[in-house]
Structure formats: C-alpha cells, structure tokens
C-alpha cells in the first residue's frame, strides 16, 4: 500500500534534470537574445534617466510649485494642495528629497508605460470575447505570481539597474488598467451604441467619440489602481538595484534601523495618498462632466 501513503513523485535525478533543463534553456535564450533586448530597452533607459535627472536637478522650490499646480489641476481642492506641500516639505526636511524624486520618476514612467500599453490591450479585449478569454488568465497570473519569481529571469536577461526594476514594476502594476479599460468599454450602454450606429459612425469613430469617453471613469479607476500597485513594488524593485526610497527601506531592514525604515516607508505612503486622492478626485470630475448615471 506504499503508493497510497507516499505520493508517486518524480525520481530525484529526473526532477533535477528537469530543473536544470529549464535553467539551461533560459540561459541559452539569454545568451542569444539578451543583448538585443537590452538594446531594445535602451531608449527607455535614456528616457527614465533623463526624467530622473530633470526632477533632481530642478531647484526644489520650482519643483514644489509644479507639484502644487499639478495637484490643483487634478483635484481643484485647496486642502489637498496644502496637505501635499506640507508632506513634501517634511520629506525634504528629513533628508529624503533626492530619493523621493528617484521614486517619483520611476512611478511616473512606469504609470505612463502602463497606460500607453494597457489601454490598447483593454480595447482589444473589449472588442473580442476570444481575446478576453486568452488575456484574462494571463492578467490573473501577473497579479498573483510572487514578484521574486520573475525577478530571476529579468536579472538574467537585463542584469541589475533601473530598466529591470521598471519592468518588474510594470508587470505587477499593468493588470488593473487593462481590466478596467475592458470593463468600462463593455459597460457602455447598448442604446447609446445603437444611436451611434444609426448615425453611421465607423467602428473607429464609435470607439473614439462614444465608447472611450463614456468608459473614462472606469479607465481612470484602473489608472489609480495601477499607480498604487506600482508604488507597492518600489521596495521589491530596489532588490535589483533601483535607487530611491525603496533602497533605504532595504538598508533599514538589513540593519534593524527602525526610524529610517519608518521614515522612508511613510514617505512612500505620503506619495501614494497624494496620487490616490488626486486621481480619484480627477476621476470623479470626469464622471460629472460626462453625465453618466450608473446603476
């Protein structure tokens, strides 16, 4: 009755060969295509570095004014602007200005790429049930697989530094914007679409002038979620050499520096709250303008 109590598992040598085979195959892939991939991502690296340098080099009072204006443009709320300025001043006073700028640059670029790549994917998904059936499980995997798992192939392909960190963040953060774009478009009222059809709108016109505008609040909720998830990846990205607040959190973890850990952790929280509240308020305003009544 051995087979009942002991699971019939693969022999140790076969299992080892299987693992080794997988590793070797990936390493061969890395040898063959790694450099090409690195070259492919080089413009992205240039852009990220340029943006980082810009944020760091801009004198802090100007940076502060820009941030305040952006918050105002998004939220139209004076308390929001005041809260943001106070927390940024505190971050600067506690010596985390430069790291915060690095993190801001990373998050902004990651969010931008998520939007540019994610929204078209969401549109494709909404167009075809088959695409949706294929893409949904992939998004499920991306959202649930532990990030450490895909750090290994990213490291072997691209090494350490900003781009591999950025890619890890994007893999983790892109699913909400894709999902909610898809959902938003699918939720657009059928009657409205019929009306557009009866006016003789082409599919492209329909998408651009009817479906996308009506789906905007949902898409915006997706962007908001994407930003939050990108911020939560900051520390993980630092494990493969991304500079910024996450790196200081790792230093604190390695040395049991309680205060340093909390200071940098709370700075990440502050950025998250600002991003979240501003994008939510902006999303709500969009909803008001488009005068869609849900439910």
């Amino acid at each position, binding site marked *: 009755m051995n087979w009942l109590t002991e699971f019939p598992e693969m022999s140790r040598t076969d299992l*080892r060969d299987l693992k080794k085979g997988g590793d070797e195959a990936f390493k061969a892939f890395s*040898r063959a295509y790694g450099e090409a991939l690195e070259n492919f991502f080089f413009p992205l690296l240039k852009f990220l*570095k340029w943006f980082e340098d810009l944020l760091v080099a801009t004198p802090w009072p100007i940076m502060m004014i820009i941030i305040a204006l952006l918050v105002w443009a998004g939220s139209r709320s004076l308390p929001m602007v005041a809260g943001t300025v106070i927390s940024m001043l505190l971050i600067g006073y506690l010596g985390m200005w430069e790291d915060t700028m690095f993190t801001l640059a990373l998050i902004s670029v990651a969010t931008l790429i998520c939007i540019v790549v994610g929204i078209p994917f969401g549109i494709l998904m909404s167009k075809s049930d088959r695409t949706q059936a294929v893409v949904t499980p992939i998004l499920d995997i991306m959202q649930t697989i532990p990030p450490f798992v895909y750090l290994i192939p990213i490291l072997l392909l691209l*090494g350490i530094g*900003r781009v591999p960190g950025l890619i890890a963040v994007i893999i983790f953060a892109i699913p909400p914007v894709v999902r909610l774009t898809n959902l938003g478009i699918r939720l657009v009222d059928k009657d409205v679409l019929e009306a557009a059809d009866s006016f003789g709108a082409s599919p492209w016109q329909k998408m651009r002038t009817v479906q996308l505008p009506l789906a905007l609040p949902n898409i915006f909720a997706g962007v908001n979620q994407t930003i939050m998830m990108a911020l939560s990846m900051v520390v993980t990205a630092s494990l493969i*050499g991304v500079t910024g607040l996450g790196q200081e959190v790792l230093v604190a973890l390695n040395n049991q520096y309680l205060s340093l850990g909390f200071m940098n952790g709370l700075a990440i929280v502050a950025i998250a709250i600002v991003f979240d509240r501003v994008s939510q308020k902006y999303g709500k305003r969009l909803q008001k303008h488009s005068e869609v009544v849900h439910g």
Partner: protein
Amino acid sequence: MKNLFAAAAIATVGLGFGSAAMAQEDCGEISMAEFNWASGELLAAVDKIILEEGYGCDVELVVGGTAPIFASMNEKGTPDIAGEQWVNAVRQLVDQAIDEGRLFAVNTAPITGLGEGWWVPPYTLEANPELKTALDIIERPDLFPWAEDPSKGAIVGCPAGWGCQFVMNNLFQAYDMEAKGWVLVDPGSAAGLDGSIAKANERGENWLGYYWSPTSIIGKYNLQPVPFGVEYAGDENWNGCISLETCIDPAKTSWIKSEVFTIVTDEFMQRGGPINEYLAARVYPGSVMGEMLVYMSEEQADGEDAAYEFLSRFENVWTQWVSPEVAAKVKASL
C-alpha cells in the same frame, strides 16, 4: 563531575604512554562544531568521516554560527574542535583566548584563497593579459561598460546596508575611481549581486565587483581574485577609516586579510595527539573547495553527501593529510 575528572585524569595519564598510540586505538568521544554554511558543513562532515573511520573516534556534531560556537568553546570548553572559525568578526576575543592558552589555532589556513575582495571572470584576464592588478584595471573603465551609461565603467559594490558597503565606498574614493570614469553600482541585494554575476558570465561579458570566497558562485564561474597591487595599509586605516561610514581621507590599501582558523580547546590540545596533526595538515585548496560548493548547490547535497563525493573525487588531496594506514581504513569504508 566525578566522571569528568576521571576522564581528564586518564587522558593525562594516557599522555605519558605516548598519545599517538592511545588515540589511534581508542580515540574516544569528540564534539565538533558544524558551522551552518555550505563549506562549514562539508568541512565538518569530512572531518567526522575521517576521524571515525580512520582514527576510531566517536564524533558528535554541534551545529551553530561563528559567534555562538566561539563563545561556547571560549567559555565552556565545548565543542572540542571548530573547523572553519572565521576570525575577523571575533578577532579580539580570539587573540585573547589564544594568548591566555584557553584555545589553540592548530591550522591557520584550512582553506586557501579565501576572503573578500574584487573579482573578475577568467576570460577577462585571458583577453586582457595586461590587467595584472586592480591598479591596471582602474585605468580601463572602457572594458567594463555600465549598462546605464556605457561611457563609464561599472564596479558592482556591496548591497546597501551590508558592512562591506562602506568599505567599497571608501576604496572607490581611495583609488580615485570616479575621476577615472567609474561608477560604483549598488546591486540592491545578495540576489541582485549574484544575478549580475550570472548574467555577465553566461553572456561572456566583463564584470568587476565585490564577492567573497569560498562560495559556490565563485567556484561555478571560476571568478578570479584581483590583487590590489598595493600593500595592506594597516589596521588603523582599515578599522579607523575604510570600514566606517564617514572616512575623510582613506588611504589606498588591499582588502584586509580574512583569516580562518581551525581551533581546538586546551583540553583537546592535550589529548588529541595525532588528530591535531591531522587537523594541521588538512588544507583544502581554494579551487577544490569551490568545486565542491558548486557540486553542493547544483545537486542540493547536504554536508554528508558532499563529504563522500569529496572523498571519492579528490583522493589525491585528502590522502596527503593522513598516514597511509589511516587512508587505507577510510578508503575501505567508502
């Protein structure tokens, strides 16, 4: 307690009759430290097999890390033997214990070629034979282009938050590397550091950075230590500046020598006889240890599996540590 005194008395009497003969026949019980990292496990397992099969001892392994094992030997006199005691971390205590005769270093280099420092892949040196020391390498940042700005050379440092991070920062400053076109890259974590080595070596790219030996990754890619080409500039420079976070004027220096001893207690020094001779002769060449660590990580072997592999694969190494009779006995048991 009574038994202990009796045992000590017998051991002392035994000494009078010639310890060699006694230990050969009736070695008795030995407690030995098994350090909780790969090379420590292997060392302890090989010692255990050789002492039990070759010398007829009864060896009990005590698992622990550097500090607890040392404290236990220093204060309680047990375990009897610590095979791979890293000294730098407990330097003052070790010196004191040896001065006061509580502990003895029977072997001051059980593994050769170990320590921290800068490493490069072997093919880098083959392709550029003129790179003899760190001083030569520092003149050639173009050979080690940084992925994020290929006009600069990259030296991969120690992950942020590790003690060696300060050392790397200060050496970077001491060798004036920034002015020569270098960037000190923070790999972020041990996984990042290992990953950057694996990536570069799988692709045949040049790589320069921090690591330490004996480790499986050094063995796997046969990384070569870089001699600094500069003398060690003294403990005052190292402890008072290089290894601190703020160091205004670091002097050029080679990396501080990492020392590993095989340590025995005073009591074991008296009764061990030929076993101490074995421990003194037992030296693993760094390359052999590296090869064994690669075996351990690839096969996910524990210390004992690896010890049997070592004894069969490197017979020419270990048979030199013991007399032909002992070697025959161990071989018979394999």
